[in-house]
């Protein structure tokens, strides 16, 4: 029984180390310094507003805060802010059956706004999207 306990603890320790390694190897690394980026908001009626942003922010949330005229709201959670309202339009998955989809270039953002890194020249798109 004692050897089973030791084996269990060892397995758990190995799993923790493996997870920590995975996190360090694959987490997005932020870029320091000034960046010029664009943020395009595509509303429910497909009208588009483009914001040219000069920012030192390392993550999209900071860049959105630096965008003149862009307003947004959301809820803070353990993984950062979850944006539910952009320019006064709410897209809540539960309440509206819709969400704000975030793209960098043509790719879907893999992180929430608090963790999505910003690089010079990035083009972000925030699109009102109906849940399928």
């Amino acid at each position, binding site marked *: *029984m004692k050897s*089973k*306990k030791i084996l*269990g*603890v060892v*397995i*758990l320790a190995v*799993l*923790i180390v493996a*997870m*920590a390694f*995975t*996190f360090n190897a*694959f*987490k*997005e690394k932020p870029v320091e310094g000034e960046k010029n980026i664009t943020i395009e908001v595509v509303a429910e009626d497909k009208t588009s507003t483009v914001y040219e942003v000069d920012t030192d922010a390392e993550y999209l949330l900071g860049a959105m805060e630096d965008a003149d005229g862009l307003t947004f709201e959301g809820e803070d959670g*353990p*993984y950062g802010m979850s944006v539910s309202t952009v320019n006064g339009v709410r897209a809540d*998955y*539960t309440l509206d059956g819709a*969400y704000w*989809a975030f793209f960098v270039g043509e*790719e*879907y*953002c*893999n*992180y*929430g706004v608090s*963790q999505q890194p910003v690089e010079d020249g990035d083009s972000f798109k925030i699109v009102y*999207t109906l*849940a399928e």
Partner: protein
Amino acid sequence: MISQKGKNAAFDVALVALMVAVIEVCKFAMIGLPNISLTAFWLVLFSKHFGNKVYYVVPVFTLLEGIVFGFNLWWISYLYAWPVLVLITRIFRHNDSAVIWAVISGIFGLSFGALCAIPYIFTAVDLKSGLAYAVSWWISGIPWDITHCVGNFVLMMLLYKPLGSVMQNLQKQIKH
């Protein structure tokens, strides 16, 4: 005149309600601690000592969580994550080692982010993007999973023996 069957049913309903209340009260008491809670600990203990009655605790607890915190995407993962823990506990129910339970609940804490990431696969514009998003979401939350794991492990090591014996006494009283 209430039959014995009716009395037993009423007793079971009260017991399930009490178990859910214990989990929720502990959750609220520890809400300020990031990803550290007694939910896994109580589910393990209740599964072990009150057998099949815990199958009613999980849906009631999950429904209550939705009512209190909102039926958001994370709530969908509660529909299968907690039943997975209960199922594992039922499989290992004859084990009485605090260390083994601590390891099991630690591994569950470590896997929690991966389990909760599954619904995110279906939120993106296509399955490929959804999968990439779910994996990234899981990776970004790994520090929280490790916190969850360590919290579950330590709480189980500290509380399994003292509260386990309390549960055993309760179990005997219920049988009588």
